[in-house]
């Protein structure tokens, strides 16, 4: 059996605080999580092709796993995460149950949102995952507000918000980064730059490609990091989370990554340069981590094979459990509209 404990992420996020796992065991742990996300999303795409999902709306993060895994590994159990429409990886990296993801996509009661949220609206309150969001940038204030309350109430929680390059050109991004800076809030803004706002390349979204330079305009810390190198992401996130926890304010962390597939199933990515695509795919974060493991001699082929098998089994079990769960119902969805329903609401 592998040395990677696959159940770990079911039990909760890393308790390792801000220590960067420079040891090979740490790398193996992060690799295992990335591989699990990769295989989960591949399975999701299979289920979609087999018409077993309740919606065709599904955005996968294949190619971007190192950002989710590297950042979430730096968090403690009382920290918060807010995420995007491309958020399967953030949800799993934060410790969201696998069956919650699969069942949600299948529209079942066992889903994270009881079959009402779908692919773009995952949530896991038990692990401080405050929901993934389908309005680009619309969730940035949710994480900022969570950080505001942590600061006001004196709790040591740090808030992390994942968002894409597209969100960074929305006004709400500016409003929130500025406010977090003014109030010195414990929030880490993770700009997961997959180079395309749907079809618009980063070079057409901004003429200043550096996130660190953008951060300096707000008077806060900023860093540009290789988003395909999970250890580099982990190190940068560790510094940012520690800064926030000490009360030294927000960080704008830019992670350069790439969406290996189209924006969605309907998108053949005709607007992308095929050579550029190939170049990025040479830097697959899962492959890079696996290579690093080999160099470090941290895991042999048999161990990695065992890891693959364990993930496949876990996925089989999650799909079976999801399919055994009852479908979401209209009555339950209507009854669930309000936290405090008022008689006569129609």
């Amino acid at each position, binding site marked *: 059996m592998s040395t990677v404990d696959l159940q770990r992420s079911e039990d909760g996020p890393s308790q390792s605080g801000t220590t960067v796992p420079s040891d090979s065991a740490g790398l193996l742990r992060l690799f295992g999580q990335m591989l699990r996300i990769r295989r989960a999303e591949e399975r999701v795409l299979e289920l979609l092709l087999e018409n077993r999902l309740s919606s065709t709306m599904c955005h996968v993060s294949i190619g971007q796993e190192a950002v989710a895994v590297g950042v979430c590994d730096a968090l403690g159990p009382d920290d918060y995460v807010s995420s995007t429409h491309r958020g399967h990886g953030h949800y799993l990296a934060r410790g969201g149950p696998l069956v919650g993801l699969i069942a949600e996509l299948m529209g079942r009661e066992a889903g994270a949102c009881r079959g009402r949220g779908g692919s773009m609206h995952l949530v896991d309150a038990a692990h401080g995952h405050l929901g993934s969001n389908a309005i680009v940038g619309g969730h940035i204030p949710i994480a900022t507000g969570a950080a505001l*309350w942590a600061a006001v109430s004196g709790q040591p929680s740090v808030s992390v918000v994942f968002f894409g390059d597209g969100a960074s050109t929305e006004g709400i991004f500016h409003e929130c980064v500025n406010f977090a800076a003014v109030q010195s809030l414990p929030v880490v803004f993770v700009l997961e730059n997959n180079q395309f706002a749907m079809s618009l390349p980063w070079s057409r979204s901004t003429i200043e490609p550096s996130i660190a330079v953008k951060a300096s305009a707000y008077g806060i810390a900023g860093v540009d990091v290789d988003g395909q190198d999970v250890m580099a992401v982990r190190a940068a996130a560790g510094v940012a989370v520690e800064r926030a926890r000490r009360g030294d304010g927000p960080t704008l962390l830019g992670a350069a990554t790439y969406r290996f597939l189209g924006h969605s199933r309907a998108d053949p990515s005709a607007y992308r340069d095929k050579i550029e695509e190939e170049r990025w795919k040479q830097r697959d974060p899962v492959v890079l981590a696996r290579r690093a493991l080999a160099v470090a001699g941290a895991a042999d082929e048999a161990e990695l094979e065992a890891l693959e098998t364990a993930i496949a089994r876990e996925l089989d079990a999650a799909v079976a459990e999801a399919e055994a769960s009852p479908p979401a119902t209209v009555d339950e969805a209507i009854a669930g509209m309000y936290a405090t329903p008022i008689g006569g609401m129609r």
Partner: protein
Amino acid sequence: MSATGTTAGSGAATSARSITYRESIREALIEEMEDDPRVILLGEDVGRYGGAYAVSKGLLEQFGDRRVIDTPMAEAMIVGTALGAAVVGARPVAEIMYMDFITLVMDQLVNQAAKLHVMFGGQLSAPMVVRVQQGTGRGAGPQHSQSLEAWFAHVPGLKTVAPSTPADAKGLLKAAIRDDDPVLFIEHKQLYSRKGDAVGRDHVVPIGSADLKRPGRDVTVVTWSNMVHTALAAAERLAIDGTEVEVVDLRTLAPLDMETVLTSCRRTGRVLVLHEACRTGGLGAEVAAQVGEELYGQLRAPVRRLAAPDIALPANSALERALIPDEDAVVAAVESLLRS
């Protein structure tokens, strides 16, 4: 005073303490902040300035800048961070200075706050209040005078209230702060200095309850916010000639208390729906439609609406006054209903 027995200010018993609408809202904020450390205020100029309409005057001094937060001018951020704070345990009261500015907040209210509880399968909730004021009265023009309440009544997941008296304002604000869903609390700029009965610390008006502000047998006027007072003044005049108008103050615009509305309409058989917002797609259309659906055949006249025309309000007090239904217009509408 019971929650449903409130009366308009002018008829207050002499023994009751008198208070303005503005002060009554402030009392609700102070009492809720004293009783619950989770209650915080945030918005533009709510602290040092005391609020653009002086509602939160003195609160910064009393509660400190951790709980009364002056924000940069960024309306979507104000409501969005209130939502984020609410999700993790706060009970924020955000202020948006003018209803017109709420156009900048639509994503946070409509896509985020209203959807959060149901979209996330009940795992999260948003116990937050957005205070906002609207309406005419200052010749403030097309971007500072609109009444946009109907938009929000159209969004499931939001609760919307628009109190007309100091007592209702206090009682509804307390209910809103204690509610576990997002509540839009709509004040009216003409009401801030209006006086009425003061109410005690335990006065809570349940969200979703309309109030009979004046009983009458001949015609029902369904209205809310500042128009309640226009309706009451018209009713006083009509009473001189023996016409008894019943004034139903909706108080809560979502969810509508149609039971109270229908009970009154069934009794009088004649219905006028009155609002300051422009006519087309106004909340009056929904009320009229529901009355028509439920009481077809029991009414003595078609349901009638009286509202502002579909126009961008000019920044000119004289034109403004001419465009908004006044006492004379209500009297004329009631008289025409009585003739039909």
